[in-house]
């Protein structure tokens, strides 16, 4: 008999996330991967500004909370000082693709040997549903009440596509957590991204399409449908880079 159970890397806490939020699934996958790779005692994570700021309340390893957008720079400092540790960032779309775009691109371009878990839910969650850099055209937010426009706001930023041209990047994959099959793929991708770092291959990033029922103003059921029917069209899943 096998038992599927809560990872020992997860602290005994009830998360502050809304019902149906994808962060909880992504946290669990990161925890399961850390446990399966047996790297907890080497891991140093970074917590972002945004809904996942309290990451350290849920994942039981060394964690530093960063200013908005700066985790790749902070992770660079940590990894360069402690190359034998396993360093990951956990970032949302505003953090990674708006205020921290420069830090993201340059850490990737330096080939920093870190792993980035990027949660793309196409909206600013913690501040209450404003437009994210990944909000889709036509999608309403509290700062694009008529829907994101092609001309005023521009189309959404596609992070995996954008980073795929950088030579020093070792691994890029876009996954989702909106079906059980996607969740399994997401876990495999996260594990592979950590393994790239363990093998010294350089910058790895997994983009996770994730649900935000509260700020999308839909039920959790409709939220998974939105990821599956809408987001996946704009943000196709798949491996965008896997350097040898």
């Amino acid at each position, binding site marked *: 008999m096998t038992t599927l159970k809560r990872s020992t890397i997860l602290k005994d806490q009830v998360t502050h996330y809304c019902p149906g939020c994808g962060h909880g699934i992504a946290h669990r996958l990161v925890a399961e991967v850390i446990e399966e790779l047996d790297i907890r005692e080497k891991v140093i994570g970074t917590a972002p500004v945004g809904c996942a700021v309290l990451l350290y309340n849920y994942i039981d390893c060394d964690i*530093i909370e960063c*200013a908005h957008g700066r985790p790749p720079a*902070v*992770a660079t*400092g940590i990894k360069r000082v402690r190359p034998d540790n396993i360093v990951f960032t956990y970032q949302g779309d505003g953090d990674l693709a708006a205020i921290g775009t420069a830090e993201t691109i340059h850490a990737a371009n330096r080939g920093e040997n870190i792993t980035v878990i990027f949660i793309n839910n196409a909206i600013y969650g913690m501040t209450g549903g404003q437009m994210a850099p990944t909000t889709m055209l036509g999608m309403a937010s509290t700062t694009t009440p008529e829907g994101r426009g092609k001309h005023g706001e521009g189309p959404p930023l596609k992070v995996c596509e954008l980073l795929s041209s950088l030579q020093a990047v070792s691994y890029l994959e876009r996954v989702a957590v909106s079906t059980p099959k996607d969740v399994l793929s997401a876990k495999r991708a996260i594990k592979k991204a950590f393994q790239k770092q363990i093998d010294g291959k350089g910058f790895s990033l997994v983009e996770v399409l994730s649900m935000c029922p509260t700020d999308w103003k839909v039920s959790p059921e409709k939220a998974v449908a939105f990821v599956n029917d809408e987001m996946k069209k704009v943000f196709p899943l798949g491996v965008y880079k896997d350097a040898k």
Partner: protein
Amino acid sequence: MAEKVLLKGNEVMAEAAVQAGCRFFAGYPITPQNEVPEYFSRRLPQVGGVFVQAESEVAAINMVFGAAAAGARAMTSSSSPGVSLKQEGISYIAAAELPCVIANMQRGGPGLGNIRAAQGDYFQSVKGGGHGDYKLIVLAPASLQELYTLTMNAFDWADYYRMPVMILGDGILAQIAEPVELAPYKPILEIASKDYILNGCKGRPSRVVKTLVLDPADGLIAHNEHLQRKYRRIAEEVNLCEEYQTSGAELIVTAYGIPGRIAKAAVRQARKDGLPVGMIRPITLWPFPDAAFAKVIKTARQLLVVEMSHGQMLEDVKLASQCALPTEFLGKGGGWYPTEEIIREKIDSMLNVSGRARK
């Protein structure tokens, strides 16, 4: 005594840092401090350290944040516009109580300003340039030998008090070359082992470095009170200035950094000429050497503040002297610097000495 070496200020500071055990530097080029990253890029690999040319000053200070959290002696440097960009990170590092050293070789401002030496960043440095109630220890060397020593001390204070320490120089200090004795590093404080760093939780509970304080409801109030207690303690313990010829002086000239050095030459000559002039040169700008001013207000009759700005330290001098004495100001921003002659003319006019009476 060790042999003296001729180096530029920027190089002296970088070498002092390496001697003091700095093993991580991240920075972004900006004149007039470019020799700092250049020197570190050559020197740090020789000692097993890490140099990173960051994509911005914002990234550089955040790399230092990470490196400090990971336990390294870490440093960044810049000049005025770049230091403005670092303020966000400085606030986080101060809040997280991590040690690091930040150098600002000030240039003319505001805005892009120019690349001449200036002292317009005093308020930004000593009053907390980023958000929130925090302080930095701010050091203002006036010679390259002093820059060498204070840079080493800066790392000790940063570790001892777990806070960022700033070296506030200017473009002149950065660019002049002087013979400097590169004495070996001697710690001035006993540094406790760093039991707060992140190095993986092997054999211990996991640790968190953070600055968000939501719980308990008064947690952030308590954290602020803790920081303020620390700052009050530092104000007692770290307090440096050079007092020169203050005994019997009717007029006290005060200036920091390079203007302090120029003022000292003017005061020395004025004393030779029989004028009752002395000088206080603050070396720590925060904590400000209040006691030295409290002392001279009992004996002197006038104060003169000289700055390469439109009067920023002036306000601290007035506070420290409790506005007890008439205080005049000599200074301009944007790249102006005082000469001995200009300071002497001001001394003469304040003491009602005719310029022609001088030798």
